[in-house]
């Protein structure tokens, strides 16, 4: 029986070429129109140390990383041990491991249910040395082996190898091609091992292969961003990297500042000067930006801040995902500081959310935080070319009449006042982190403060009315309704669709606008479900507690599934919770009858 969906994991240490192997697999899949999701994981070491690459390849659309690995390649069991509890083998997985590594089986923890695993020793090092003359080629041997065993497209793989070594000496390319052949030949000797796991698919048009960070960068330019200031921090730096190439190509400017204080200051300065401006960071950087986020709220200056969340607090888990910057994003400020918080729910969404962030920031003259996270920001997956029919808006500028007696912070019904920028004659004004009157002059008067607070908060109403982003999956009327946000959506969506496939009435609500919250839509959703599960990767349940501050979740019918980040949410975890709650509600019905 062939399959349409396979998850590979390759594990080794830095020098083993694990990531290159995963990259090439992913690129090859994308080139023939397969759906691909690639996730990398590392230890905290800068070079060397354990690394893993998980690649899910499917003939059908996919929404999550495969929970269980069907094909596991292990170059070194000591490295594998570092991912204990994170990389789990499927019950009937094939484990292709380095023959020369004689770690006893009982010391290897593949996961909870692995009795039927097929253990296949492979002399990776020996094959590489024999064919290519160097053990460095073992990743290329692996590619030959995998492609032959699982019927992966070989021609693009060969192309990829040629591309990779094009700039090297011809002997190097030749040696690697020999390695590839050697892998294929070895595969033909162990074909049985792959029974039931050969891919079946029809090749189609190539797909884009991108990460959330890359999409955020391109989206910013699409939305008209022409100034970026940032300070490197994992897992957000790819935004800085890509923009450092692209920004000057579209006539814009970029500065790597001395710290995040400077990054947000420069963004506020650029935006004050009339140019759409953005920064990207992670939790520790957002913490440093907090004071000036308040400045942007107070001075009503548009600013877009992408926060790619990682495990925290403090330096935490720099390379791994978590959903625990929520409170910081919503409330991290002194004073009453209105801002908008958006959360992309998948890789492609990073594009849409970033464009929306600029529109909202410019229209409402507020800072907008885009709460992305490592899982969607750094994993690469396939997508079709975007339609790019997004509305791109800008800020309201003063009319000639306004400029005759210009009041930058003029009282208006919506709270939004036309904003001039340098170059506009008659539009000169002083802006201020101090409370100020309509013309921008500092004041400490209570009455003005109260009036201006109301003005600044009033602007959020329009944001909520115009942008009630949320997603709704699954049954119209459901026994179980899941509420989650951000990257949890992928596994939740897949679990919901699977449950629906079994005839279970399950649904999910995923707000992408977190603040101001799409309250009415959420109330409508709650009316259609009997039991509620809040799902999130935050140990202290930040999302659940946030919802509780303004919503009444059904008493006695609300469950919370929360845990720390550091390991991505899996479909089976969500399915398990759905089953438990379904059983519970069935039990309750019986009792009531």
């Amino acid at each position, binding site marked *: 029986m062939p399959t349409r969906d396979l998850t590979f994991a390759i594990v080794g240490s830095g020098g083993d070429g694990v990531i290159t192997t995963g990259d090439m697999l992913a690129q090859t899949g*994308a080139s023939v129109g397969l759906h691909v999701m690639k996730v990398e994981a590392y230890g905290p070491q800068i070079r060397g140390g354990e690394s893993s690459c998980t690649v899910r390849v499917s003939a059908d659309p996919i929404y999550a990383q495969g929970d269980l690995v069907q094909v596991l390649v292990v170059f070194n069991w000591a490295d594998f041990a570092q991912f204990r509890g994170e990389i789990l083998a499927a019950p009937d997985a094939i484990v292709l491991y380095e023959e020369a590594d004689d770690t006893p089986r009982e010391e290897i923890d593949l996961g909870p249910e692995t009795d039927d695993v097929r253990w296949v020793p492979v002399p990776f090092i020996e094959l590489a040395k024999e064919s290519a003359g160097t053990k460095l080629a073992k990743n290329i041997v692996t590619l030959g082996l995998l492609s032959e065993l699982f019927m992966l497209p070989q021609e693009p793989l060969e192309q990829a190898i040629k591309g990779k070594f094009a700039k090297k000496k011809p002997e190097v390319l030749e040696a690697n091609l020999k390695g590839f052949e050697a892998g294929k030949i070895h595969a033909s000797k162990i074909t049985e091992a792959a029974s039931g796991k050969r891919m079946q698919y029809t090749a189609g048009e190539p*797909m884009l292969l991108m990460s959330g960070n890359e999409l955020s960068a391109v989206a910013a330019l699409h939305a008209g961003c022409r100034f970026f*200031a940032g300070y490197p921090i994992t897992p957000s730096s790819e935004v800085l990297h890509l923009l450092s190439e692209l920004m000057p190509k579209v006539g814009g400017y970029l500065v790597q500042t001395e710290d995040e204080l400077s990054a947000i200051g420069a963004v506020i300065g650029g*935006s*004050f000067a009339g140019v759409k401006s953005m920064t990207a960071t992670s939790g520790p950087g957002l913490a440093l930006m907090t004071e000036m986020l308040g400045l942007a709220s107070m001075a009503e200056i548009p600013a877009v801040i992408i926060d790619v969340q990682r495990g925290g607090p403090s330096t935490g888990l720099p390379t791994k995902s978590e959903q625990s910057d929520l409170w910081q994003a919503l409330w991290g400020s002194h004073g009453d500081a209105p801002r908008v918080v958006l959360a992309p729910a998948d890789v492609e969404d990073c594009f849409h959310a970033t464009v929306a962030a600029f529109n909202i920031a410019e229209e409402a003259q507020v800072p907008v935080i885009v709460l992305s996270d490592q899982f969607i920001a750094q994993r690469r997956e396939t997508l079709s070319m975007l339609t790019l029919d997004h509305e791109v808006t800008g800020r309201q500028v003063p009319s000639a009449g306004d400029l005759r007696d210009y009041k930058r912070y003029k009282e208006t019904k919506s709270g939004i006042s036309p904003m001039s*920028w340098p170059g506009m004659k008659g539009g000169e004004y002083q802006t*201020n982190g101090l409370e100020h009157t309509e013309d921008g002059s500092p004041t400490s008067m209570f009455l003005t403060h109260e009036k201006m607070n109301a003005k600044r908060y009033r602007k959020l109403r329009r944001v909520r009315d115009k942008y009630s982003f949320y997603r709704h999956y699954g049954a119209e009327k459901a026994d179980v309704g899941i509420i989650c946000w951000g990257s949890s959506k992928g596994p939740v969506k897949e679990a919901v669709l699977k449950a629906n496939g079994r005839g279970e009435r399950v649904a999910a609500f995923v707000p992408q606008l977190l603040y101001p919250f799409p309250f009415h839509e959420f109330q409508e959703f709650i009316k259609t479900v009997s039991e509620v599960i809040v799902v999130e990767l935050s140990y202290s349940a930040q999302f659940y507690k946030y919802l509780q501050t303004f919503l009444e979740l059904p008493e006695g019918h609300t469950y919370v599934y929360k845990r720390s980040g550091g390991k991505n949410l899996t479909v089976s975890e969500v399915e398990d919770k759905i089953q438990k709650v379904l059983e519970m509600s069935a039990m309750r019905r019986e009792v009531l009858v």
Partner: protein
Amino acid sequence: MSAAGVKVELKPGAYKSGLKPVWCPGCGDFGVLNALYRAMAKLQIEPWNTVILSGIGCSSRLPGYVKTYGFNGVHGRALTLATGVKVARPELTVIAVGGDGDGLAIGGNHLIHSCRRNLDILYILMDNEIYGLTKGQVAPTTPTGDKTKSTYWGNPEPSVDPCELAISTGATWVARGFSGEMKGLTEMISAGLEHNGFSFLNVMSPCVTWRGDDQFKEMKAKVAQLPEDYDPSRRKNAVKYTREKDKITTGVLYEVEAPSLTDQLEDMKTRAMAGNGSQSTKEMLSSFYPSF
């Protein structure tokens, strides 16, 4: 930073915003403000194409008193805001101002990096050797031993010479002025505005309230001029006039030519756009199709 010609001649008074300064009578910052009005009039700077940014402190109130675009930001971050304005809109005239605490303590890191980048702006630091706004605590420029509100037993720390710091971290124009010397100060401000690159002007600007009336007199008595034949293009000459104990030597200590950040970024843009011009979103995305 040059100003294009304008039809109506702007007098110094034309640069007044109309807002009355909150400074104590006799505060040195009045002198800086007046010199700035004069220098702007001298260069006929267009207010609508000019941005003045500051942090927090008595001195940082200055932008409110000038009829240009103004930004009174948060403590220590004037230069971060100015970086954004200048980089995003290189054609604007950008001036940052603030106090010794603002620019050397909480914002010291930004000063170092603005010097190093040769950011094309004028930065005026009003040095009163004290924290004025917060009522008299020790500052990085307070002399060792001085008693302040926060150094009951006398300041235990050495002070910094801001000009020396600026020279050593890459500023390409460094001057020292005195708020009581209107003519010299006006000339320095206009020269600093015309310089291409980071212009750092440290103005000794007494705080009558927290350093007493004597501070003005003492400073005035110490003021000295650079020699007639002084050559500001040599770092080693300039360094002789830093860390002075008994003198406050005023004038342009250091001036060299080097590409400013604006020059560098414009060059980068030209290289990036050479041949193909601006890229469309679709082109940018298409580069992510697998290519072997």
